[in-house]
């Protein structure tokens, strides 16, 4: 079977690429271990909230990472719709998957934090409601892609959902902010807290941010390369089937 020049290119690149990616993984792993050590050992215990406050060092960076991921979905999706290059769709899809994981963890860690602090698992505050809607929109994004008739349709539907979802979230935020059924955010909300954050806490939070950015980039990177491998396998399988069919026809 002959190998197309494009595939050969990708193979020679594939020899080089893992090295950079593996180094990045190593750095991310070390950062993450140090981060966990800092969160549990270095950061002082909160005077009012106690140990449960430590979940905040995971919760807040993960929330911001999911927003970054969804912004990537929006930008890469729009670029795909304009340029029609599959790498933009791969990026968009990878960012959406990673974003859904991060936002799910954000909701879960938020719930863990809310029960002891607010006395309720969930309050319908604008921020919480918007986050839940965000989660629903990107779960719908995953569904729309899964049920699409083929991959190019999935890419278009996904990009459209990423575009509309992102714009919609801005309007959702205003609508729930103005909603009178919602009480103002409790005094211990993330924003109220960051003002009063002690300097060691702020340092730990900053470090946590850094390690989560590395984790986000690594996960998206890994997912994109996995996806291009999937594409390669698919096209190899296709050309193999075609050459077999050709051989069968030759006999």
């Amino acid at each position: 079977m002959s190998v197309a020049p494009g595939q050969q290119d990708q193979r020679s690149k594939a020899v080089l690429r893992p090295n950079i990616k593996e180094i990045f993984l190593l750095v991310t792993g070390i950062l993450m271990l140090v981060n966990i050590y800092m969160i549990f050992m270095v950061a002082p215990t909160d005077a009012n909230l106690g140990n449960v406050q430590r979940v905040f060092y995971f919760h807040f960076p993960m929330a911001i990472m999911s927003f970054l991921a969804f912004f990537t979905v929006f930008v890469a999706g729009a670029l795909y719709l304009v340029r029609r290059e599959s790498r933009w769709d791969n990026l968009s899809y990878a960012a959406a998957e990673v974003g859904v994981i991060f936002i799910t963890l954000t909701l879960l860690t938020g719930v863990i934090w809310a029960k002891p602090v607010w006395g309720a698992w969930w309050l319908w505050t604008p921020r919480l409601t918007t986050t839940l809607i965000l989660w629903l929109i990107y779960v719908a994004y995953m569904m729309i892609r899964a049920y699409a008739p083929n991959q190019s349709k999935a890419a278009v539907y996904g990009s459209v959902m990423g575009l509309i979802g992102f714009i919609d979230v801005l309007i959702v935020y205003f609508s729930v902010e103005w909603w009178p059924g919602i009480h103002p955010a409790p005094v211990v909300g993330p924003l109220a807290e960051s003002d009063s954050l002690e300097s060691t806490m702020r340092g730990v939070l900053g470090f946590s941010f850094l390690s989560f950015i590395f984790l986000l980039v690594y996960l998206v990177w890994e997912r994109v390369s996995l996806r291009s491998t999937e594409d390669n396998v698919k096209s190899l399988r296709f050309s193999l089937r075609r050459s077999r069919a050709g051989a069968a026809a030759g006999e």
Partner: protein
Amino acid sequence: MTDFLRPVGVLVWKDIVLELRSRELVVSMLVFGLMLVVVFNFALSVTPQRVATVAPGILWASFAFAGVLAMSRAFAREREQGGLDGLLLTPVSRDSIFLGKAASIFIFMVLVEAILLPIFAGLMGFSAVSFALVLTIVLATAGFAIVGALFAAIAVQTKSREILLPVLFFPVILPVIVGAVEATKLAIGGESVVGIGHWLPLIGAFDAVFLVICPWVFSLVVEE
């Protein structure tokens, strides 16, 4: 301009004629909407004291769920006999096709809402005669129709068809539902259009934004 609007009118007329002959959509929307009121009545145990707070929610939940029927039928009908392919082959801009579909969803929804609203008002005991309420219903239904037409066009092409539509539609339409419920609450309370404040501009802004985006992405969604 007439070149652009004429196909829209033709498409809408075609859907109306189809509906006049089959009479399947509007009747099922009406019955479904009424049934939802009965269900909510028991689920929320509506008492005269609670009507003012509960009625707008029931009203819009019924409108929204009944509206989903109109949306899913709009493209399911086209798909059955390959009508959508035929539509796309005609020398008509995709924007016109989209607007024609959105307009026919809008018309069917408004028709059903116009019949349901007085019945609701009678059952729940509030006054439906209010310009603010009518304006809210028209603006919110326009938002439903625009976003619904796009997601119906997507959902009908997927493996799961109509099942996917509500899952896609409801998270995105949420700001309109919030705005419509709050505006209705105020309108039933006797507020004029001015008294409703930022809810109508919110719904209007939603309509305007998606009226620009949806026709464009529709042309990308239906292309082969």
